[in-house]
């Protein structure tokens, strides 16, 4: 059975506070902080993009897994901010982790769920015996139009998961995965457009809530598990509010989702969001813990996973760089003007 053999996360160390954005647009920071449950978000350095974040996460994942990078048989990178329109991010990752040339690779895009879609793909390759290990990465430096509500949340970060099936290496078996997909235009970005467009409140009910709920309920039906059977649950988190609401609707407690709820302090890392949440949950999980993960990607779809943590997690823990260490220390706060400069948003330059 395919399972996780290692993971790694990278989140840039720059932060901007909700107050600093709200001030510029004459908005009420407190109302936004309460309404969206967001306090600050990560901002990539000028020298970071979805590829550099993917590489940092991938290197940590290889180290954590304790495998030879030459044994990775497939690398998929999910992002909605691939640095090139044509030329894969995956090849940059392969070269920089020193993988073998005999590797399957591609870039994926499915808004915020491309990384979990990649996990499903490599699970199939691993279970079929086509490859020994496969890596899927969700990595983004997402863009929010200046002045748009997205500006408070669109952040940067990524996570890489290595999937394998050697019993002694797997730290969490993936018992089941299901998806729910429909053509729902809640959020999009056309080729060449700098910023995404969203249809406001439409992104909530017919988008996020409908898909997450449908996929999770399908998971309950196929596995026979209910909310009480899980130690932890992680949901996609476009802001700090939606995952709390959807968890409650599905019957999960705040305690179950707390370890994986990071958007309030790092923002929405898009393809990275649910995967970083899963990594943070695995950082503290114990053998025997059961974890539910349901991602969401606009456009729209949700992938749901049920995982069970194995004894191997403890032995590998010393090689893990904890998410709390990555996002908690070494923060550098920037003001809005610096944010604009670093994002190349200043006109006439």
């Amino acid at each position: 059975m395919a399972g996780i053999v290692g993971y790694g996360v990278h989140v840039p160390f720059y932060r901007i506070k909700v107050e600093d954005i709200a001030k510029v647009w004459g908005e009420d920071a407190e109302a936004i902080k309460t309404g969206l449950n967001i306090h600050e978000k990560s901002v990539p350095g000028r020298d970071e993009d979805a590829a550099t974040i993917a590489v940092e996460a991938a290197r940590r994942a290889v180290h954590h897994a304790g495998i030879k990078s030459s044994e990775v048989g497939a690398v998929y990178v999910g992002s909605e901010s691939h640095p090139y329109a044509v030329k894969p991010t995956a090849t940059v990752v392969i070269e920089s982790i020193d993988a073998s040339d005999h590797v399957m690779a591609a870039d994926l895009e499915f808004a915020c769920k491309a990384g979990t879609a990649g996990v499903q793909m490599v699970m199939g390759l691993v279970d079929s015996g086509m490859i020994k290990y496969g890596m899927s990465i969700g990595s983004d430096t997402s863009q929010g139009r200046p002045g748009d509500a997205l500006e408070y949340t669109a952040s940067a970060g990524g996570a890489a998961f290595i999937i394998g099936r050697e019993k002694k290496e797997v730290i969490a078996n993936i018992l089941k995965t299901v998806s729910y997909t429909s053509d729902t235009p809640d959020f999009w970005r056309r080729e060449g457009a700098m910023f995404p467009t969203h249809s406001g409140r439409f992104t909530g009910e017919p988008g996020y809530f409908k898909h997450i709920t449908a996929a999770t309920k399908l998971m309950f039906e196929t596995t026979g598990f209910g909310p009480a059977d899980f130690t932890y649950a992680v949901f996609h988190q476009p802001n700090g509010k939606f995952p709390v609401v959807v968890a409650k609707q599905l019957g999960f407690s705040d305690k179950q989702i707390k370890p994986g709820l990071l958007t309030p302090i790092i923002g929405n890392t898009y393809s990275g969001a649910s995967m970083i949440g899963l990594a943070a949950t695995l950082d503290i999980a114990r053998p025997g813990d059961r974890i539910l993960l349901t991602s969401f990607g606009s456009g729209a779809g949700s992938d749901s996973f049920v995982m069970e943590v194995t004894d191997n997690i403890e032995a590998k823990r010393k090689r893990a760089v904890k998410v709390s260490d990555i996002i908690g220390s070494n923060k550098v706060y920037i003001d809005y003007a610096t944010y604009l400069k670093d994002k190349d948003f200043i006109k006439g330059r």
Partner: protein
Amino acid sequence: MEKPSAGLWRKIKSRYNLVGSTCSKCGSNYFPPRIVCRKCGRESKMEDRKFNGNGEVVSFTTIRVPPDTFKDEAPYIVGVVRLEEGPMVEGHIIENSRPIDIGTKVRTTFRKMYVDGEEGLIYYHYKFEPV
């Protein structure tokens, strides 16, 4: 003006992964890679060697008047770093919240060095960051 890509491509191993060379005879380590050992001359063979990326700042400065390719990046810090395996290499040092001085321990990260105009290549590279 976008540049052709071969110049970047042929050094990717070294720029991404700090691959230098080591002399099969005297064991001297070099970065960037060399074809001829400075000590043994042509008496020995050079082999690829990937360095672990940990090192110590030997000297550093902040570039405030940059070349054209870096006009939007200045100011930025560059330094000479002595790698654990011996070679001294130049590189950018990322300013995180930790102080940078002579003797500061650093490790490598993976970053963009620069972007060639609107339509050219993105040049990825190792950079150092204080630990």
